[in-house]
């Protein structure tokens, strides 16, 4: 069992390393890739050619004139010291920008995904319990309907209606302008108000599918022998619903939960643009827009690493909730 943990950790580390290498490859080797563009930009800006290499080095942590493997080494070593290069657009070290923005994105996305899953599971369970009823039919239809909109499109809709037209919620920013003290209740409320619309975009557009998945799992489980035996043993309906049906219905959805967090963090690029919410996705968007390669690649790296860690956590903890699983291969059934 322990060897499994070691292997899994090793695999994550290897994955991270591959991602780093991939990023390096993209920066350095893609035709028309970041370095080439950066160089072209600098030339266009009229920078003295002799200085270009130096500038590139400071932005991207590479010395372009050195052999490839030295460049690679430079890159990786600076990463390990936490140096992610310098943003062209903002003129600041990327690490600082990321450090400031990442927690906000994680806050919004994780909160949203957690609430969405909780609601989806509850809803799906009730739908399964009342299977065939009007509630179930209507719920199923609504679930499908809500899922026809990608969350960023729904976000646009929310901003227009609730932000601009009704003015119930702010339309941009993480906090109001001038908000300073993070320890007052007012600040907390302010933060929450700014986060409501983004979070709602995610919850409304993703809850439907999760509810349907939960419903499907639960219905299948109701036909299981152990549910029938549990009834015969005289257990209370409530206990059967939670410990027998619910507990087992969640299993296939667990890994999906963590991957979804990762996916949503990736999708923050669009969401934060709509809300002008300075999280990590927003910076990524700005970097893409302005061809700010150092920032772009660094954010890419950070987001990927977060996902690798999320998957790692998922795999390791899955065996905690499903005792049948010994090596960590999750029950992939939908």
């Amino acid at each position: 069992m322990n060897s499994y943990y070691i292997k899994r950790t090793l695999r994550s580390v290897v994955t991270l390393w591959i991602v780093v290498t991939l990023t390096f490859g993209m920066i350095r080797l893609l035709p028309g890739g970041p370095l080439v563009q950066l160089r072209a930009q600098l030339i266009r800006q009229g920078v003295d050619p002799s200085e270009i290499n130096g500038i590139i080095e400071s932005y991207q942590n590479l010395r372009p004139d050195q052999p490839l493997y030295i460049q690679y080494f430079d890159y990786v070593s600076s990463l390990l010291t936490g140096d992610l290069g310098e943003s062209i657009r903002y003129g600041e070290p990327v690490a600082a920008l990321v450090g400031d923005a990442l927690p906000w994105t994680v806050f919004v996305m994780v909160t949203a995904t957690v609430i969405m899953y909780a609601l989806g599971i509850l809803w799906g369970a009730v739908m399964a319990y009342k299977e065939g009823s009007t509630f179930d039919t209507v719920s199923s239809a609504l679930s499908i309907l809500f899922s026809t909109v990608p969350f960023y499109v729904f976000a646009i809709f929310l901003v227009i209606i609730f932000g601009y037209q009704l003015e119930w919620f702010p339309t941009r920013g993480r906090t109001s302008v001038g908000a300073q003290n993070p320890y007052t209740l007012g600040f907390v409320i302010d933060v929450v108000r700014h986060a409501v619309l983004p979070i709602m975009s995610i919850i409304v557009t993703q809850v439907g599918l999760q509810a349907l998945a939960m419903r499907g799992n639960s219905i299948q489980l109701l036909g299981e022998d152990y549910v029938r035996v549990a009834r015969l043993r005289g257990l209370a309906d409530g206990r059967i619903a939670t410990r027998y049906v619910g507990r087992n219905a969640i299993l296939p959805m667990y890994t999906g939960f963590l991957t979804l967090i990762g996916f949503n963090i990736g999708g923050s690029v669009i969401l934060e643009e709509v809300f002008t919410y300075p999280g990590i996705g927003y910076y990524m968007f700005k970097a893409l827009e302005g061809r700010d390669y150092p920032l772009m690649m660094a954010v890419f790296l950070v987001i990927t690493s977060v996902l690798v860690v999320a998957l790692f956590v998922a795999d390791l903890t899955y065996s905690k909730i499903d005792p049948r699983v010994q090596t960590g291969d999750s029950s992939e059934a939908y």
Partner: protein
Amino acid sequence: MATDDPIIRMRNASVTYDHGESYVLDDVSLDVERNEILGIVGESGSGKSMLASAMLDAVPDPGLLEGSITYVPESGSKVDILELDKPGLRSLRWEEVSMVFQGAMSSFNPTMEVGDHFRETIQAHDMDLESGMDRAHELLEDLYLEPERVLNSYPHELSGGMQQRALIALSLVLDPELLVMDEPTAALDLLMQRSILILLRELQEKYDLTMIFITHDLPLVAALADRMAIMYAFKLVEIAPTREIVEHASHPYTRALLNSTPNLDASLEEMQPIEGSSPAPINLPGGCAYHPRCPLATEECRTTVPEFERTADGHVAACHHTDEAVDRIPLNYEELLREDTLGPDGDRA
């Protein structure tokens, strides 16, 4: 067929689907004698599982169970099982009448330890937890399991035989009077099957249980049961003490069933499967349901449903030709019988 001290009295029990369109249990009347081991034998789809479920009024939706099933406890008044309300059923099930299904693995919640199953059952019936668990320990030991180890394991960590035994212990933890077992050994290897039979016999003696053992495997249950009831096409066709069944089965189906069991002593051609297949509930033949496959079938069989006829003490068979059955359908192990029979000259005892 009535007995002296029945623990269960079942009369005209039927289970129908589709508003009486199809029967999966057809007018079954049976008494279960206290402290006996009754074997119910039938092919797949003969309705035997339905019969088991009916004893606990646990026929799955949308089946409709009708008739009269009376439970007679050791002390206290009779209980009409079909009239029980929900709390009544809760007091009956598992406390008085308990059940073990086929496939022990799927009867346990895979995400719960075995011990938790015991605890929650005890608590759901408002019994004292400590004495309940003591009883559980004792039962597990009787079944040759290590109580601590089994209780702290998850179901999938136990072998098939261990799971089945744990399930039997779970079904007995509230000290029921009657245990109904539906194919409890089907998924196990032969050696384990035999061991469990022996264990069941021991349990029955120690705890004064009545047992109903339902299976398709006639020779298996013959080693354990006191009486046997044979089912065909959702009806009972023969009921008799085991010895009677093995030596003097009077129903053609029973005899054919006995002949179809692989037997080391018979030659290859003497072992015959029964031609044809058993009918589906929507497509029952008229008259005696067995007549399409029966070598003794006559016009009467095609039109009239046979009633139970008494062929010997405590032995009934539902056939129009019970007297001919013995002569016209020889058993392929008759030589063995002649050697084994108690009577000195080999005649009927």
